[in-house]
């Protein structure tokens, strides 16, 4: 097993360094994708009977945090 910290590829860091707009746009788009992915998979975990605590542990956040964010669905 390779347990080093995941590294960010060279492309991720130096691409379009001359254009902040593109880099920041990529950040916003990624963040939105991550939010959607999270909502989808939290919902699936709930359907599969996972507790909020287990989901929180999997996401690395508190049970309260994950419930507050996704609890109303």
């Amino acid at each position: 097993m390779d347990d080093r910290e995941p590294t960010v590829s060279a492309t991720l860091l130096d691409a379009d360094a001359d254009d902040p707009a593109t880099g920041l746009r990529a950040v916003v788009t990624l963040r939105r994708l991550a939010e959607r992915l999270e909502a989808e998979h939290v919902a699936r975990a709930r359907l599969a009977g996972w507790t909020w605590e287990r989901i929180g542990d999997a996401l690395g956040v508190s049970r309260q945090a994950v419930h507050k964010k996704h609890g109303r669905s």
Partner: protein
Amino acid sequence: MFEHFSADAVKVVHAAVAEAQRCEDPVISAEHLLVGIATARDGPRLLGVEADDVRRARSDRDRDALAAVGIDVALERHVPGRPRRRRHRRFTRDAKGVLDEALKQAIGLQHRRIGVEHLVLAVTARCDDDVVRLLDRLGIDTDRLRATTLDTIRRAA
């Protein structure tokens, strides 16, 4: 300031808010106002494109931005499913600028009300980077858009 807006112009602003919500964008930008304009009754005629064309251009632009940092994903264009969380979103400086400029455009033309056409003129007058690039993707030249919009106003007068 909205007391000077026509009913259609108010709808543009509401549509911009709804668009930001639908896309889960954190703020309401001049781009959302552009989508809003395209949803207005006279919008597609003034712009020469439909709202979905603007949405597609934004989505393509986002995909290209990810590709530029080495991430290759297919972005969904229309996200189905559960309703998005409503939360307060602020207007960006650019978006406020467009609304202020629309007022100036109306005053400049000695019009009493701010209509959709003044919002279009405001977009072309401000030339915000993001918006100009988006219009460029749509094959819309800002100078030309300004000229044709002024034409439309003159013919309606």
